[in-house]
């Protein structure tokens, strides 16, 4: 531009930086209706959304029955209009959904466990709250032990509560929490094992991972519950819930291993060499340099596994452990609340709980990902 005709050019005046031109006007609205095709698509989308949203809102709120004491209050014949969700059913069964048949006089122990967990988890999740290390040790180390003694009892004067009577959301949370906090370390160890230079470690890890990935969770649960006792000596009675927990942890660990392995493979060789050249041994190299980077890369995969695990816990229903969904189905059988809408109400309620937890995990993971990538823009 400077040298159209001349062959040389020397700048005399400095061009000062200017603010960028004003942002282009929001084009969203324009795009929605530019041309007949886009207009048609937009209208179609609106129709679909309304067609889905309206019945939902109508069922959950407008036509819903909010008070009552039995099925009669939720029957359209008695109410005299179309009936939506039967919320009194949820209210009546709420304790059962939350605690299963955990003795009513002892349910405070479950609440205390939840409260403890929340008190430890919330500061752990909020960046910037100090003492993260101590907090993590308390949450991942002390809390599970404490929760175990609180829930099971038999010590400190707490009456023993058999896991047979546990149920509802309590079981769902126990299984998924145990699965989540044990499957990640197990997965990390397996992933490291699979990439190990020691042939025995590598082979063992590969066999373990491929075995557990090769069998369906239902098979694992069936085996743990009904077959395993046949192989074990008579006096080796392992608690039914504990067997399921172990099965779930091993199963989830194998999946987690592959997720973590993906992250490990994405770390350039130079990072390993840089760490080695400084004299960091294998474990320090992995723990301080490689894993912190690898795990950050696979946060989406890890959270994906966590969410899948959280929802997979519903499968324990088939081995007669009644988690949230199990209690729900048990409650459907209660003739006191047998109405045409009971089923939908129950599933809507359970669906909301599962959705809130899963969506929460997913959003939190997104938030962390963004935060970590801002910290060190690559």
């Amino acid at each position, binding site marked *: 531009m400077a040298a159209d005709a001349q062959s040389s050019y020397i700048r005399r005046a400095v061009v000062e930086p200017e603010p960028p031109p004003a942002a282009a006007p929001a084009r969203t609205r324009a795009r929605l209706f530019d041309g007949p095709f886009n207009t048609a698509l937009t209208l179609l989308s609106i129709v679909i959304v309304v067609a889905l949203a309206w019945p939902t809102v109508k069922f959950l709120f407008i036509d819903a029955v909010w008070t009552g004491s039995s099925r009669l209050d939720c029957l359209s014949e008695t109410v005299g209009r179309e009936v939506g969700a039967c919320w009194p059913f949820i209210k009546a069964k709420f304790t059962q959904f939350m605690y299963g048949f955990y003795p009513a006089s002892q349910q405070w122990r479950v609440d205390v466990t939840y409260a403890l967990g929340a008190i430890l988890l919330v500061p752990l999740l909020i960046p910037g709250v100090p003492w993260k290390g101590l907090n993590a040790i308390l949450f991942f180390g002390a809390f599970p032990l404490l929760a175990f003694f609180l829930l099971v009892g038999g010590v400190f004067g707490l009456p023993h509560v058999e896991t047979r009577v546990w149920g509802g959301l309590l079981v769902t949370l126990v299984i998924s929490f145990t699965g989540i906090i044990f499957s990640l370390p197990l997965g990390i160890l397996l992933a490291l094992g699979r990439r190990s230079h020691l042939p025995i470690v590598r082979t063992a890890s590969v066999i373990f991972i491929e075995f557990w990935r090769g069998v369906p969770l239902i098979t694992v649960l069936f085996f743990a519950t009904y077959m395993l006792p046949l192989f074990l000596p008579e006096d080796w009675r392992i608690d039914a819930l504990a067997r399921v927990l172990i099965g779930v942890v091993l199963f989830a660990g194998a999946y987690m291993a592959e997720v973590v392995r993906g992250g490990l493979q994405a770390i*350039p060789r*130079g*990072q390993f*060499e*840089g*760490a*080695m*050249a*400084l*004299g*960091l*041994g*294998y474990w*320090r190299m992995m723990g*301080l*340099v490689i894993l*912190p*980077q690898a795990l*950050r890369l696979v946060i989406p995969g890890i959270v994906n596994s966590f969410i899948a695990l959280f929802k997979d816990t519903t499968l324990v229903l088939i081995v007669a452990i009644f988690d949230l969904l199990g209690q729900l189905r048990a409650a459907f059988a209660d003739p006191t609340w047998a109405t045409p809408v009971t089923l939908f109400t129950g599933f809507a309620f359970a669906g909301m709980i599962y959705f809130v937890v899963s969506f929460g995990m997913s959003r939190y993971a997104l938030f962390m990902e963004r935060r970590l990538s801002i*910290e*060190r*823009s*690559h």
Partner: protein
Amino acid sequence: MVESLGKNGRKRTPNGPARSAVLDMRTTKNEVAIEIIDLNKWFGAFHVLRDIDLKVMRGERIVVCGPSGGGKSTLLRCINRIEDWQRGRVIVDGTELTEDLKTIDEVRGEVGMVFQQFNLFPHLTVLENCTLAPIWVRKMPKVEAEEIARHYLKRVRIPEQADKYPAQLSGGQQQRVAIARALCMQPKIMLFDEPTSALDPEMVKEVLDTMVGLALDGMTMVVVSHEMGFARQVANRMVLLDDGQIVEVNEPAAFFSHPQHERTKLFLSQIIR
């Protein structure tokens, strides 16, 4: 400030108590820092290093050059056993490198390495990059490790970048951080693997200046580089490596003005324009 480091498990002074009997034996000058005896290495069927014999004295600066694929980097990486080999011996600072992992990590602590691609840890700040190994390998208290790190960051002239992440720095700055990181372990020997090859031309000088400073301080250095100006300025000896063999070893003046081997003449004619 840095003199006080001696107390910390690290013996810099000749009279200080040494960490092991092996290290005790070397304390005088004019002593061998690195000895490579009949080193042979294969990558699969490819014979990448052939009968390498090389002795580097303490305080000596060796510049290794040669065509790409000649085995320069591989040779350098054998010195701290980031690569292993099939035949031959490497003795660093009186300690022979064997399969023993403990010895290897000990030697790596004594040998700093600077890579072509910097290999800084992107998830750690500049300061954390520098203090990681002193804290975890040398078991140094954090405060002291940070003091040393700041000293060396000042030395490579980027003290103000301590709290940034590597990705926020220019290539030249990153490489200088990498040098500071290696120096924080207070190594006896520094290895440089083409430290300026990945840099924009404008940033080469700042890195070379840092290395010249190190050389003037008497650091034992083995440098793989094609920066012939730098080589002339600091090298005690030049080594030309081609096809996995040492073709010629000579003092820089003779190496550049009267190369003996045909291969050296050809190489020099191709890189010096």
